[in-house]
């Protein structure tokens, strides 16, 4: 939307900066962009463990890992979307919808409980992708509409939000969310596996290259023969699938489909991806960064909870301010990178 807007500014910067030792500052800013989040995470965790005895306990860490897992799966799909230069605001609604559908479907067995949310949320993602890629509508407005639409479907499935579907405690599906392996919850394992898979797809497959190419320069990608529309449709479908799966896993963990979940989750996911170093302008980003971004957000939330006297309203203020700071830093670093 605004990619071409900074041209005059960039041109000016080039003129000013070319003669100086640009190579080193470029490397430094690239380093900051790639590992800044990781450094911040380590600092935040060290500070938190020194300040609160309750921070580095098994229970607390396990809780953080589990609650990070669901957001991380959503952020995984979002990473692909943002690298193509798009945005997906519907993930929060799809997360909630996926959870409710999974809880409703769990009475017919784990297969239905997993496939139903994947099918419905994947389909909504596909529709998003078709409208964005084929009809060339703005991603934010399409996904804003499907955020509203998915919430509407969710409400009509649950009798205007008055009905809560429960998952049988002993069922295989519930076990998927509550069980553990080697002392670590199954959702965490699933998330790690998905991230490894996502990283391989993005870095080592042709599809991954197309994702970067489309985000880098859509017209150039099309001229090179990359299937631009198909790539875009795929990433939005993927994002829908991830959000639906995360919702289903969350429902298994909570043993119920909670209708009010997921609002504001799109922001958390976008923040995590951006904090992880992925550029909102597209064409540049890492899967691993998004995981670090999620963990960083959760550590901050945890610290706010530990302080106790601060409530969830402060979490929102801090998250919003944090996103703003990161985006400012990123724009600044990115501008220097682009110059060279």
């Amino acid at each position, binding site marked *: 939307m605004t990619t071409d807007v900074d041209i005059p500014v960039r041109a000016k910067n080039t003129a000013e900066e070319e003669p100086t030792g640009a190579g080193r500052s470029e490397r430094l800013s690239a380093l900051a962009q790639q590992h800044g989040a990781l450094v911040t995470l380590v600092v935040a965790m060290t500070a938190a463990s020194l300040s609160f005895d309750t921070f580095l306990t098994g229970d607390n860490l396990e809780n953080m890992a589990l609650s990070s897992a669901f957001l991380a799966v959503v952020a995984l799909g979002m990473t692909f979307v943002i690298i193509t230069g798009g945005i997906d605001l519907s993930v929060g609604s799809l997360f909630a919808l996926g959870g409710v559908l999974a809880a409703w479907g769990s009475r017919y067995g784990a297969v239905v409980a997993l496939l139903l949310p994947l099918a419905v949320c994947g389909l909504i993602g596909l529709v998003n992708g078709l409208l964005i890629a084929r009809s060339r509508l703005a991603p*934010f407005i*399409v996904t804003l509409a499907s955020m509203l639409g998915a919430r509407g479907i969710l409400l009509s499935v649950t009798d205007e939000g008055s009905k809560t579907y429960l998952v049988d405690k002993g069922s295989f599906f519930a076990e998927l969310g509550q069980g553990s392996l080697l002392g670590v919850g199954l959702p965490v394992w699933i998330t790690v596996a998905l991230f490894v898979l996502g990283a391989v797809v993005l870095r080592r497959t042709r599809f991954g290259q197309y994702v970067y190419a489309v985000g880098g320069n859509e017209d150039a990608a099309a001229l090179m023969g990359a299937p631009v529309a198909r790539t875009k449709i795929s990433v939005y479908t993927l994002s829908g699938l991830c959000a639906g799966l995360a919702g289903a896993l969350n429902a298994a963990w909570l043993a119920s489909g909670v209708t009010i979940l997921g609002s504001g989750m799109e922001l958390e996911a976008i923040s995590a991806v951006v904090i992880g170093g992925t550029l909102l302008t597209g064409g540049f980003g890492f899967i691993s960064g998004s995981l670090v971004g999620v963990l960083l957000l959760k550590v901050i939330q945890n610290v706010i909870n530990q302080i106790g006297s601060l409530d*969830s309203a402060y979490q929102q203020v801090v998250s*919003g*301010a944090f996103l*703003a700071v990161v*985006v400012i830093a990123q724009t600044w670093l990115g501008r220097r990178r682009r110059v060279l």
Partner: protein
Amino acid sequence: MTDLTLGRVSADRDRLLALLQEYGVYLGVVVLFLVNTVFTPHFLSTENFRTQAVQVAPVLIVALGMALAIGSEGVDLAVGSVMALSTSLLSLYLGYGPGIAVLIALVGGAVVGVANGSLIAFVGVQPIVATLALMVAGRGLALVLLPQLKDVHDPAMAELGSGDVLGVPYVVLIAAALALLVGFVVRRTTFGRSLLAIGDSRPAARLAGLPVRRVLILVYVCSGVLAAVAGVLATARLTASDPSSLGNLMELSAITAVVVGGTPLSGGRIRIGGTVAGAVLIQLLTTTLIKHDLPPSWTQIAQAVVIVLAVYAARERGKR
């Protein structure tokens, strides 16, 4: 553009389509009005018109600010949170008198606008992201200031919320006046022309020597203040401050009204009349569904469909 190469028939068809895109929203309002006149009991009554107008007023006021943001090729997702923030500030400072409290609430909206505008104009952050950050932080701040619902007992505020002049509620009069004002600003002032030029092409506007940054900041300040006005009026009408739910999904309704009204998302053009009709259309749609006992969830789905249809219809029109 395609007229040159295609035949005359398709040129006629294009003209018809363009006409439909241009005036479709008014047609939609008329059709829904007629449908409701025939099928909805008690639709044609002064009481009902009054209720509908009062309900549409805050949406319209927010949509006017949104139209300015969209015209500058941006968007303001923070408007719902600004409404919440203004209601919190209003309740907090009501002890100093309603005038001062309202003023502080409006200043709060302006401050959020300055923050949004600075992020966009000086840092170069995309409008969606900048305003998304303020959307979350703003709602949080509103809840920090006023953690729960609080009743507003103030005669002046009550009068503002439910009083009228010759049967027309103040709320509606204010909305109408603001629509005229924004329409005038867009058409007749330097600020309005600059804002459209920036929406058309920011590099070109910059090369032409327009004060791009100042205009952009002013755009988001206007949007913030208008959202705060809507928040104040909504509070006056409900006689309560509810920062957790006031203005929820308002950004969506406002964007819908603007886009359905024919303002292209690509900037450079603003249709105030269309925006007014767009807001009325959404209100009529909601009324139609609710009065016929369809569940509220259907309203959301219908609104989503209308947004996509409107954007789809407008997609080829783009810039002139």
